[in-house]
């Protein structure tokens, strides 16, 4: 395979610029993937720093460090930065790097747009973060920007909305690119039902993105005109409806949370077979389960707002629809365990993170089922129980999967093995601390602590202290992660093309590091090279 990938690229791609211009003008999917991933890591540390402020203030009752306005800015910005700046760009970065390699394509279908969709992001986040330094401060109404509260803020709201628009444009372009690449650029023989699951989950996420990002854009534009141009979409006194915003927002928001988890499912579905030395169990079922989850994501949005006072019939519908999601999600968990079952497992860092994902995502999924039960949700809603739930699915779910993917593919990207010992330390340190951080928050919520409060009654002290200690330890562990990545980029034991003994799939047929141009001549694909094979397909 390497003959097709390395030898000729100078002939038909001409000179490659160096220095800053190389990164500014690149249209290469690998370089753009790297840009996304580096950007994501920086945002992860920025958002993490905000979380440290939150946990430091909540370490003890009473206000010690920040005033309540700034605390609310921190919770709001932490969420926006982590969701739109860290997790989503990380997935797009992984998609850029891996989808062409996995389907045997020479690059993404729309390379110039690819460049643009990345370079929008630094500007979008410069605008978002600049609101912290504005006289009226950053938005402080929670990342959901519920009116009327969000309309009380200062002019910084306009900047936030502009940056959300930019992020949306970037996401939509990224999604179009992913779809165009997957549907048009697969190597001969790479039929849809031979595609790796990471490709499948991304394809489905990309459709979700295109469907819902414009809805978010619509919602925030109505906020903008309500705030600055005298409309009353969400103002009851002017004939509008504050709850309407919540319906529109969560029609975006619920598919959005699956956008944040479906590619994670894909990564886990690549890693577990590799380190179990056994093909993925129930490939076809996994594909259908992913599609089912995506479909259901459009009809469950109101479970985020059971307490707004909806008709009984609507509450029952959204409760049942939400409960049904447990079925395809369960199918996924059972298939992963069946993949491991009677495999021949080893436990390198990617596998450790994948197993961590499996355990803790299951915990988050089960608490999600509890949250679906409307009468009980009247208690859970807007309490720390919810905070614990979505951090279990987002941090120990999405973020752990991203880290698993980074450790898994880092040797392919850099040509070096990462430091396995440090990787294992990072895993155990993160896993222990993240549970110390988030598990006690279940108790806090059940005991009656509302979310988004800077100070609390003294009976909540112990679990908040424990949670904060876990938070600081988890934050520190991520600096180790940044160091491990940096160290691996700089050097390390040389990686083979296959890297992992049990790895299958086209990405492992190209050398490590993957040369700038791969699959100039499409590879031939049959069941012997694909990662997955299922009798049904």
């Amino acid at each position: 395979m390497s003959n097709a990938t390395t030898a000729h690229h100078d002939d038909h791609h001409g000179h490659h610029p160096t220095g800053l211009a190389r990164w500014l003008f690149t249209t290469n999917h690998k370089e753009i993937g790297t840009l996304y991933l580096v950007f994501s890591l920086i945002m992860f540390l920025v958002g993490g720093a905000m979380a440290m402020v939150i946990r430091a203030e909540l370490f003890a009752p009473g206000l010690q460090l920040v005033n309540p306005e700034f605390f609310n800015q921190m919770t709001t910005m932490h969420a926006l930065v982590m969701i739109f700046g860290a997790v989503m760009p990380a997935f797009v970065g992984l998609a850029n790097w891996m989808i062409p390699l996995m389907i045997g394509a020479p690059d993404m279908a729309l390379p110039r747009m690819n460049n643009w969709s990345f370079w929008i992001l630094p500007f979008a986040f410069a605008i978002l973060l600049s609101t912290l330094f504005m006289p009226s401060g950053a938005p402080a109404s929670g990342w959901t920007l519920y009116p009327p509260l969000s309309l009380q803020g200062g002019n910084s709201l306009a900047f936030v909305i502009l940056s959300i628009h930019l992020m949306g444009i970037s996401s939509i372009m990224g999604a179009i690119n992913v779809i165009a690449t997957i549907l048009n650029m697969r190597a001969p023989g790479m039929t849809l039902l031979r595609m790796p699951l990471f490709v499948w989950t991304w394809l489905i996420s990309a459709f979700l993105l295109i469907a819902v990002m414009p809805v978010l854009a619509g919602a925030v534009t109505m906020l903008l005109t309500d705030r600055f141009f005298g409309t009353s979409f969400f103002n009851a006194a002017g004939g509008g409806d504050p709850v309407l915003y919540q319906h529109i927002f969560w029609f975006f928001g619920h598919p959005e949370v699956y956008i944040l988890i479906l590619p994670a499912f894909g990564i886990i579905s690549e890693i577990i077979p590799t380190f179990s030395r056994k093909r993925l169990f129930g490939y076809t079922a996994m594909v259908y389960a992913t599609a089912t989850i995506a479909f259901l994501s459009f009809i469950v949005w109101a479970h985020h707002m059971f307490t707004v006072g909806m008709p009984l019939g609507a509450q029952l519908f959204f409760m049942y629809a939400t409960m049904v999601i447990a079925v395809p999600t369960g199918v996924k968990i059972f298939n992963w365990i069946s993949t491991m079952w009677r495999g021949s497992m080893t436990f390198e860092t990617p596998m450790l993170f994948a197993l961590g994902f499996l355990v803790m995502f299951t915990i988050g999924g089960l608490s999600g089922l509890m949250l679906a039960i409307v009468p009980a949700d009247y208690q859970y809603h807007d309490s720390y129980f919810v905070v614990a739930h979505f951090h279990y699915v987002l941090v120990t779910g999405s973020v752990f999967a991203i880290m698993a993917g980074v450790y898994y593919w880092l040797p392919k990207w850099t040509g070096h093995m990462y430091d396995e010992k440090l990787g294992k330390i990072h895993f155990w340190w993160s896993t222990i601390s993240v549970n110390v951080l988030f598990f006690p928050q279940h108790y806090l919520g059940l005991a009656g602590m509302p979310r988004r409060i800077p100070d609390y009654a003294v009976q909540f002290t112990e679990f908040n202290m424990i949670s904060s200690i876990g938070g600081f330890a988890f934050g520190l562990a991520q600096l180790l992660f940044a160091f491990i990545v940096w160290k691996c980029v700089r050097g390390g034991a040389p990686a083979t093309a296959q890297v992992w003994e049990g790895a299958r799939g086209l990405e492992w047929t190209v050398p490590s590091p993957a040369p700038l141009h791969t699959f100039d001549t499409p590879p031939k694909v049959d069941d012997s090279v694909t990662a997955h094979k299922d009798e049904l397909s």
Partner: protein
Amino acid sequence: MKRTNELIVSLAVLAVVTVITWGLFAVGDNMPRGVTPFSQDVYHLHNTVLGIVTVIGILVFTAMFTSVVVHRKSKGYEAAKFTHSTKAEITWTTIPILILIVIAIPATSVLIDMEDTGGAEMNVKITGYQWLWKYDYIEDGVSFYSALDRESNRARQIGSGINPRDVDNYLLEVDNRLVLPTNTRIRFLLTADDVIHSWWVPELGWKRDAIPGMINEAWTYIEEEGVYRGQCAELCGKDHGFMPIVVEAVSPEEYRRWVEAQGGEVAMKPEEHPNFVGRGRASGSDAGTEDSAETINIAVLDQG
């Protein structure tokens, strides 16, 4: 040989996972049982679902860690080749559906009960303000504001030098408590004057959003006398964490005495309350929320 091995390991793993789970339950708090029929229904529903998901979790983790312990390359375990089983897929699709139906039935009946707000013996209108509550006893003509008490308010300032532990019911005490009779079916009408708030007393078993321009309904029937504390649950601005709720449930006779003692006292205007900061802060969006609370008041009375 291998089969016994898996069985023994899985029993050991099951024991370990169960002990860890038991430990997690032992050290933590659970939802309060509460003092109303609804809160107790919710409590039982919560415990049932929690029990079911805990069992599911224990079984899933047992299977997973059994595999992790037994099926390792370092133990010379050779990978099997199977990749599919339609029977298994059908099984683990069907069983969860059955479990969900078992959960859905009680959940539906408790919800239907909660949503039936008829038959109220008295009505209390709750209005959320930034950052205090107003209570209007519609039949009894009592009306007052309820805000964070002075001591908590002093202690919560940055650099106050007061240890929150030295303040009684820090952040969970108000100047005027919501006094309610026990064994009475009480309907609440919830709305807000400025932004969305949410009225939550865990011991009553629910929270409900107070939304400007809308009236939400909820009801309660308190069976035990006592003082029950809660907080605003929907982010409503800088002092969202500082607008507690205190319900004082007393016998119906004592409640009547309390109403008489209030004797036609006219409530302050919200602006006169020392803790009131709302409205004016809504820079730029002053278009029209001014009178919404009054309008709602009239609407409620018309209904009643």
